[in-house]
């Protein structure tokens, strides 16, 4: 597969390491959330057959974590963003 890195352009997916569903961005706060919430966060997956937002790490590249929108049936990639930007847009900071 080819991933169009937002900074570096097309790169072979072989350079990346896959993590999984981009919802992993929304980590609950451990001081307020309990096992219930963390269980839902860490273990439950929508696992769609179709468009899927997922986290990839450019390990053999610039070490950026990316959020990639990819179709799990056709493997077509329609969007690639820096995970840091997505995380901020979802309200994550420090």
């Amino acid at each position: 597969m080819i991933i169009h890195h937002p900074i570096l352009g097309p790169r072979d997916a072989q350079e990346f390491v896959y993590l999984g569903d981009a919802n992993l961005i929304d980590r609950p706060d451990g001081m307020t959330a309990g096992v219930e919430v963390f269980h839902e966060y860490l273990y439950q997956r929508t696992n769609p057959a179709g468009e899927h937002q997922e986290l990839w790490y450019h390990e053999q590249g610039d070490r950026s974590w990316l959020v990639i929108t990819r179709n799990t049936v056709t493997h077509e990639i329609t969007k690639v963003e820096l995970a840091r930007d997505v995380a901020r847009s979802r309200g994550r900071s420090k």
Partner: protein
Amino acid sequence: MTQSNRITGGQIDRTKTLRFTFDGIPYQGHPGDTLASALLANGVKLMGRSFKYHRPRGPISAGSEEPNALVELRSGGRQEPNTRATVAELFDGLTANSQNRWPSLRFDAMGINDKLSTFFAAGFYYKTFMWPKSFWEKLYEPIIRRAAGLGSVTREEDPDNYDKGFLHCDLLVIGAGPTGLMAALTAGRAGKRVILADEDFRMGGRLNAETYAVGDLQGADWAAGVVAELSSMPNLRLMTRTTVVGAFDHGIYSAVERVSDHLATPTDGKPRQILWRIYSGKAILAGGATERPVAFENNDRPGIMMAGALRAYANRWGVKVGERVAVFTNNDDGLRTALDLQAIGVDVVAVIDSREGGDLLPGIRHLQGAEVIDTAGNLGLKSISVRQANGRSETFAVDALGVSGGWNPNVNIHSHHRSRPVYDPAIAAFIPGKDGPPGLLVAGAAAGQMSTHAALKTGRDAAIAACDLTNGPDLPQAEDAPVRITPLWHVAHGKGRAWIDQQNDVTVKDIKLAKQENFTSVEHLKRYTTLGMATDQGKTSNVIGLAVMAELTGRSIPETGTTIYRPPYTPVAMGTLAGRSRGREFKPFRLTPSHHWAKEQGAIFVEVGNWLRTQWVPKAGETEWRQSVDREVLATRKSVGICDVTTLGKIDIQGTDAGAFLDRVYANTFSTLAVGKCRYGLMLREDGIVFDDGTTARMSPSEYVMTTTTANAVTVFRHLEYCRQVLWPDMDVQLISTTEAWAQFSAAGPNARNLLAKIVDQDISDAAFPYMGAGNITVGGLRARLFRISFSGELAYEIAVPTRYGDALLREMLAKGAEFDPIVYGTEALGVMRIEKGHVAGGELNGQSTALNMGLGKMVSKKKDSIGMVLSQREGMTAENGYRLVGVKPVDPQAKLTAGSHFLEKGAAAVAANDGGWLTSKVYSPHLGCDIALGYLKAGDTKIGQRMRIVNLLAGLDTEVEIISPHMFDPEGERLRG
């Protein structure tokens, strides 16, 4: 032997003669020959035996779709089973042998299967061999396994090299027939970066096998002219002997270039083959079409082949396959063969045309509405029986028969993304369907455009479309004959067998049986009869197979459906797919700064991931490894030992939020750590299981140096990047690995400080550099780092210098500290000392254990949020009777322990219900004078002092042990604070 069947013409170099042998018999051929064309030129038609019935077989094709003429090429470590004689390029000294026969090709004892064929109907083996139960594995299966298989594999290492590479282009053109040449010419002249790949050693495709003209040239000459122009273009890369075998995501294709297969041996160690990964903007599949047979009784005899192949052998290779030839066709293309052969003086006895009406061929006996119903000739075709339109049957004595059932577009690559081909009644064949690989266009015969004109036109137009051009070259004049075909899949006649898949011996009868047993879906048909599962992957058999099923079930061909082709297009050698990553080069080596010193000392090395670490350093007279390891341990605890710990991961963590960041990623707290101090840190996964551990030092208010285990250096770094980019994107934290920037050595033992004092420029007295101190120092003016940490339980330091000075630092320590008799210890002694101290490592950090299991539960701070803190509190992970780390020693000091042994109470049976846990690591402790071990024991913290058993059923060991504290040596830790 003379080339009795060689005639004039063709694209072979008669000025040179090549010698080769087949089954030990010497023959001659010419450059330009394939093994098959050369054997046919020598009058040899019998080249192989079929898989199940061991029927005598000759080639039915002149290409890579060949199911029959498979040979063992070359010998020794280069023996190459199942090689298609039809594509094996002839070279001087070639040796080939027939396969899957005993004792010889002409007299094959296994031919008995053919006589018993009625017992070997499709799937018979699913219905028998079940009684008595034990006989399957003891009797039936061994016989079947011995009989199965085609060619045999050498046991020697393949002596040849393989290589890989990456290519980039705007346009990849797959196939260099008229379509591909025209496409390449169009894009090439427009200045695009083009790769033109063809599996053949001569470009031109079908034009090399035909007699008709393109423009005012012979087709083959026109092709040669285009190839010449393309070769002169810098933006063109022409790749002959290169088969594009797979279409992958986003325009990536794999191709195999056969660099040296046309040579006796590769020149000067050059690769035999190269696997190319081609990154294409767009691609055009111009793979042409493959002729398919018609099923009729005994249609598999040597001498019966595709009409197009008969023509190709004559036109391209100057070979007449037979003296008296007939052609059996259901379409106009078959007639071409008759005319071409007649033109070069071959005796064309008859053309059996299954169609009614139409023009009769001049000067040839052209029987219309006729069918071949049977043939004779055991090792080679002798005659055919023909049923004429009027029902009368007639026998013709022929030694070759050309069969044409129509042409199947080569849609294979297009279906590699699981796109299903669709049936086109106009040409009675499947053409590419929708949802093929994005960016892949199909043109020419591969798209069902069968005439030369259509090939040239669609090739050009595809290139124009692929490269967004406005126009292309003018098209030369070329034949534009329409496809005239009346489908005929099999000849309904008699009780004999009519072959569909010749290699796997799948006949019309088998399809009938599959239908009778309701294996009617094409997938069931394929799997039950093995149709299309042979080395040709059904290139000549799939379509007629499913067409026959359609006839039997009364469904249309589209209703019946079709299977899809999977990569690779043609089989690929494992060596090619592996490339250079073989033997010692399977993975790169990582060498420590002390590697060269250790090698001088004759040290024993051990693989730790890709690292080679010193396992122990034998001294003269030491015959058994334990002697060396015990000595290293004792010497260290007595005076001082040095160990290369460079392999531990080192991560430089800087930024104003570095401390707060570490509080999140470690279970314990680091923001409160004083500058110039280090602390042991425990890192959890989000699921609360221990991920990694190590000591981390604070070098300045905003700079920490983290150490990780050797095994997790990479994954921990990845995890930290994840935390700082994804979880807390606004923290001011920067990371970089410095694992290899520093050569780091541990100096441990009562004299560690005394030795280092002779090396470093600063005061490192206990007062100046206390336990768990850390700081930047200098060694003879050279920048260095010192950490007062201990894995061995001794007074110990880790000293680091820039890697290039590591070797010198080690030698300096040994020289300047000579008075303390320092020794260098390896990973074994390291293991002994850490286990004596009860420090967890590999065996305990198994990805299944919690801090609580390790006796480190208190380290998980609940006062702050950290990765894994919440889920580590789940009930199943905090149970009272859960596993706890314990120390173990045998009651009898002579008794041996084995890591991996399990705990049992005294008297308890060795069954899972009584399983108390297991030993994670075991060593011999020279101090305690016996084996000792660490282990995870259920409720182990309550069992200290008790006696239990540890059993190793694999070795029949059952040993009484005492459960002790994991801190087996200097539990109060006085030594390391000394």
